[in-house]
Structure formats: C-alpha cells, structure tokens
C-alpha cells in the first residue's frame, strides 16, 4: 500500500474517531460508553497508522470500521420499529452519515488491499516523491476537515459550542434560541417569580 493511501486512511480514522467521541454527548449511556471507547481506539489507530509502514491490525481494523455502520442501521431500525424518539434523536444522519463515509473508505480500501495481497497482484508500493506526498497529505487533511467540521457541528456537543473567539456569558445555543412559534407561556410564568428581578 502506498504511503499516500495509508495517510488518507489514517486521516479518515482520525476523523471518524473525533465524530464518535463527540457523539457521546447526548447519547444514552448504553450507547455513549461504546462510542467513547470506539472513538478513542479509532483516533489512536489513525495516529499509529501515520507512523507505520504497514497499517497496524488491518484485519481487526476492517471489522471495527464496518461494525459501527451496521450498528447504526440496526439502531435506526430499532428506533423506528419500537417508536423510540429519544434513541432516534441520538442517531442524527449528518454526523453518523459522515462517519459512515469515512468507515466505508477505510473498510473498502483495506478490503481491496487484502484481496490484492491474497491474489498476489499487489504491486510493491514505491515511495512517493516528497512534493507528491506533501500535496496528498494536505488534500487529505483538507477533505477530512471539510467533512468532519459539519459533522461535529451537528452533534449535541457542537450545537452547544460557542463561536471561536466570541466566548461570552450571554451565548444562547442554537437549539435553545426562543422562537415566536410554540412559546409556552405557562412555563415562562413558572420562572417569573413575584418580586424577582433575575440574576
């Protein structure tokens, strides 16, 4: 496998790891714990892949790349069949879908490499030139950043994140911005205590 392909796989794994860790916030505990472990493992594997000539634990990595994708499908089905909106809400299509793209890229490339090795058609990868390697690394970083950023922003953690350099106490998360529609005056009145001028 060429160093460039290995670099892209590593970037995809790092991106998936970040998304899975971010998804822990707002997920049910039974889903959050495996997601946290999975995210840390994916991130660590991605960093390790940068430093090795061959991808570490390639066969296990292939299974780990596909497993969350299958689990997402099963959980979506379960949320729909058992009409569990809380579970469905934690399976938002943007972060899970983008993570799925990364996982498919990792699993697909690993599977292709594995088949070529088995059939003996895997040409010995030559070291790319320095310029080509740097351009490929930059392109990979930009592509993963471009996909990971909206995915992180769509997670519960991302929704409550403040814009860079604009930290202030009056920040209202997008999800909590009051709208004209559906204002529950009963709830508002509940917090308007007599002679209470607010904090």
């Amino acid at each position, binding site marked *: 496998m060429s*160093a460039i392909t290995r670099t892209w796989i590593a970037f995809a794994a790092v991106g998936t790891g970040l998304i899975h860790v971010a998804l822990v916030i707002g997920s049910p505990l039974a889903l959050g714990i495996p997601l946290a472990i999975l995210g840390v493992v994916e991130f660590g594997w991605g960093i390790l892949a940068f*430093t090795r000539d061959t991808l570490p634990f390639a066969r296990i990595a292939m299974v780990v790349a596909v497993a969350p994708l299958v689990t997402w499908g099963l959980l979506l089905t379960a949320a729909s069949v058992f009409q569990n909106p809380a579970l469905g809400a934690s399976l938002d299509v943007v972060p899970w879908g983008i993570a799925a793209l990364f996982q498919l890229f990792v699993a697909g490339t690993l599977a292709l490499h594995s088949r070529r090795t088995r059939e003996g058609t895997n040409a010995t990868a030559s*070291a790319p*030139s320095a310029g080509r*390697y740097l351009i490929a*690394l930059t392109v990979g*970083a930009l592509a993963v950043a471009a996909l990971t950023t909206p995915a992180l922003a769509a997670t519960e953690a991302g929704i409550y994140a403040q814009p*860079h350099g604009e930290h202030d106490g009056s920040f209202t998360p997008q999800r909590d911005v009051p709208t004209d529609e559906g204002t529950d005056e009963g709830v508002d009145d509940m917090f308007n205590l007599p002679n209470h001028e607010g904090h």
Partner: protein
Amino acid sequence: MTRSPNRMLGAIVGGFFVLFGLLGFTVTGGAGFFATEGGMLASMFQVNGFHNVIHLVVGAALVLAALSNRAAARAVNSGLGFALLLLGFAGLLLIGSEFNVLALNAAGNVLHFAAAVVLLLVGIGADSRVTGVSA
C-alpha cells in the same frame, strides 16, 4: 531537499513564518510589544511585536533545519508542530484575556492549528525507515 518531505515542508512553512514575521512589523507600529490588541496582518491575523519575533524565530528554525539535513528537519518539524499544537489549545483560552501577550485571535489560532497538524504529521510520518516515505 526535494527528496525529503520534512525538508521541503520545513522550507515552505518556515519561509511563510519568516515572511509573516517581517510583514507583521509593518502593521504593529503603534501597538505595544506585548499588547493584547495588536495590528491586523492581511486584515485577518492579529499580531504584536512579540508575536512577530516568535514568527521569525520559528520560521528561521524551520528553514535552517530544512537546509541542514533530513534528521534535523524531522526533529524540528515534530517539535515545533507539537509546540504549535499546544499554542493552539492555549490560544482558545487566552483569546480575550489579559494574558494574551501574543495578541492571538481566532484566525491566527486556526493557522497555528493547521501548521501544527501538517508539521507534526509529516514529522512523525515521513523520512523514517519505518514509514518508507523518502527512506
């Protein structure tokens, strides 16, 4: 130099840092050396005198290591990449505070993170016998 990713990257990124350091002095005339509100470089990146000096030192270190040899370039890229990563995280806390002696702003922070990631990853991933890139 064109056969080693670390030497090539060190020369390119180092050159940019030196250029930023020199250009920075053209916009920080009225600001104090450690001022938390500096001048705006390219209407995006806030810098003060101290920030300019750091850019020059970092840039010079990267370029000199790149001109020297592969091992030096790799060590300096990795080391400064890690330092820039730490600075990026520190910047998240320092922006808007009285301890912001580098006059960091959000755009500068993004640039520091980007430079950190590229330097660090090329530093650990290329020019080693293990990875085979430019071995």
